[in-house]
């Protein structure tokens, strides 16, 4: 098992290098930071001083070298905007994103397993059709539209919930969570339903019933674990989407997470912070993928044998 993890880490290294180089190049395509940070009336001398102070006067290849060197000590440089340590800013923003993503996936998976299993228990029943229709609608919902409508109805018109921000009680979580939840939930209900329909029609389910197993035991004890692999794969993929794709939701709701930090850094041409934020996200996504593979192995001894072989 350890060799498996080690192998996966090594095989993640190549794409990680691509990310490291890619974010460096792309960040510099956003434009000249001097134009943004200096007044319109700035003299050429002020411009040169600004560039020299931030190391932007060096040839690109040298800047890249400095950046790569810094990586080994987790030193991404300082923020142009705030002068703070870039890595520190990214690390401080990340927990807010992870909390939101974690809570979302937990709710999505638990909800989808219950609703999807209920739908699969009697295929083509009213429950099945209803959940099929609703999950399809949820999976196709554009999150930015849902977020804006949510703000309009619950914050502006009804005044029940805050429009944005994280100051306050649990009510600040409601709209961001719902917005993030709706699509993964819809997708997962459909995946769970499909996997459970085939698991519940398997002969071992009949055998379990022939032993006098209760229906909850049959559904959750026997069928669900067999239905888990596709659900796990899709859930992993959706979590990746939440970790880096919370950009829209974090921007709309002013959620101080990594997505908002990335957008702000791009707008402010804050290269160091952008690089740190992207790298942290990338490493998390690689780790998530390895975790999903480990869960597969945990669920099924046949996978376990294949990966340890």
């Amino acid at each position: 098992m350890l060799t498996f993890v080690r192998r996966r880490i090594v095989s993640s290294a190549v794409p990680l290098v691509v990310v490291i180089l890619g974010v460096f190049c792309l960040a510099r395509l956003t434009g000249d930071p001097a134009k943004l940070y200096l007044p319109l009336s700035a003299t050429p001398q002020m411009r040169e001083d600004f560039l020299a102070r931030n190391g932007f006067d060096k040839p690109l290849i040298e800047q890249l070298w400095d950046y790569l060197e810094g990586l080994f000590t987790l030193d991404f440089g300082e923020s142009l905007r705030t002068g703070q340590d870039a890595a520190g800013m990214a690390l401080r923003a990340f927990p807010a994103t992870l909390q939101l993503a974690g809570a979302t996936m937990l709710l999505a998976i638990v909800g989808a397993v219950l609703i999807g299993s209920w739908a699969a228990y009697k295929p083509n029943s009213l429950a099945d059709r209803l959940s099929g229709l609703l999950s399809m609608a949820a999976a196709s919902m554009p999150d930015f539209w849902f977020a804006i409508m949510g703000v309009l109805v619950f914050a502006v018109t009804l005044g029940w919930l805050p429009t944005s921000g994280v100051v306050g009680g649990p009510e600040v979580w409601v709209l961001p969570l719902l917005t993030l939840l709706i699509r993964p939930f819809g997708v997962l209900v459909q995946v769970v339903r499909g996997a459970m329909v085939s698991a519940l029609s398997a002969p071992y389910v009949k055998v379990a019933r022939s032993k006098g197993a209760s229906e909850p035991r049959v559904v959750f004890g026997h069928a669900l674990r067999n239905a888990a692999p596709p659900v796990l794969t899709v859930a992993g993929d959706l979590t990746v989407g939440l970790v880096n794709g919370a950009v829209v939701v974090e921007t709309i709701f002013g959620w101080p997470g990594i997505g908002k930090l990335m957008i702000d850094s791009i707008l402010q041409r804050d290269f160091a912070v952008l690089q740190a934020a992207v790298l942290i996200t990338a490493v998390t996504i690689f780790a998530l993928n390895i975790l999903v593979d480990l869960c597969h192995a945990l669920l099924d001894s046949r996978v376990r044998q294949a990966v340890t072989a």
Partner: protein
Amino acid sequence: MSSPSSSNAPALEVDGLSVELRTRHGEVRAVDGVGFAVRSGETLALLGESGCGKSMTAQAIVGLLDPVASVTGGSVRLAGTDVLALDRAGRRKLAGPKLSIVFQDALTALNPVQTVGAQLAEPFRIHRKMSRKDALAKAAELMERVGIPDPKARLSAYPHQFSGGMRQRLLIAMAVALDPDVLLADEPTTALDVTVQAQIMELLRELRTERDMAVVLITHDLAVVAEHADHVAVMYAGRVVETGPVQDVFADPRHPYTRGLLASVPAKVGRGEELRSIKGGPPELHAIPAGCAFQARCPMVADVCRTDHPGLAETAPGRAAACHFATKEPAHV
């Protein structure tokens, strides 16, 4: 004559059992008024070709029909109580300790992601509320009983780590875990090679004797019936067409279908001769003709067969056949 003692009452009595299937041709009757009885310590073979309704009969008895099928009539009495009249919870209580079934394809019938120990322990956990540890000890005993080497170590193994024969042994162990009164075995040896098949049948026979179970053996294999069953019920197109003690039925079949089946056994054909078979195929369930279902393939067919459905009628004490000409000598086939 049988004495009226309770030990002689049938352990399982099926009467007039009918099962209907919802298909694109509408409701079709897959099992039509099937009846038979088995006593403790005896084996009854339900014999017939694929699609004759024998497996569906078994699934109806244990209450595990697929959702497209439903029981539309008849009774299934276990030691006198009609299990079809019980609610689901009531049936669940019987599933395992009273009535049990061995399925045919042991690879798919075992849960691929659970250890065999957990699966074998499950009946004890469910019905006897045993602790995990005690139930696993019972599971190891069972594995030992059905001839799985090194049972304690293999409790934590998974189904795919066993051979086909061993998997079938596991399924049988699971079915007999709680000493059921009645054991149904639905083609328990179909997927196995001949030597393993013989071992499995021998194991079933031993268990039957040792635990005094009534066994219903569902099969299409005449040799298995001849060797391992006491009574036989031959099924055709969802109906029982002939019943009786195996020796008598095989020595002197009274239904032309039984006769055809027996004549098609290769061992009876001389070297170089063509193998015999029953011409044609069984009718589709949605197009079973009026009268006798076997009429299109029957060498003795007469006008009455096309209009009147022959009921199962006694031909000799303990024997019955559903043929208008059951007591007539056969025309030369």
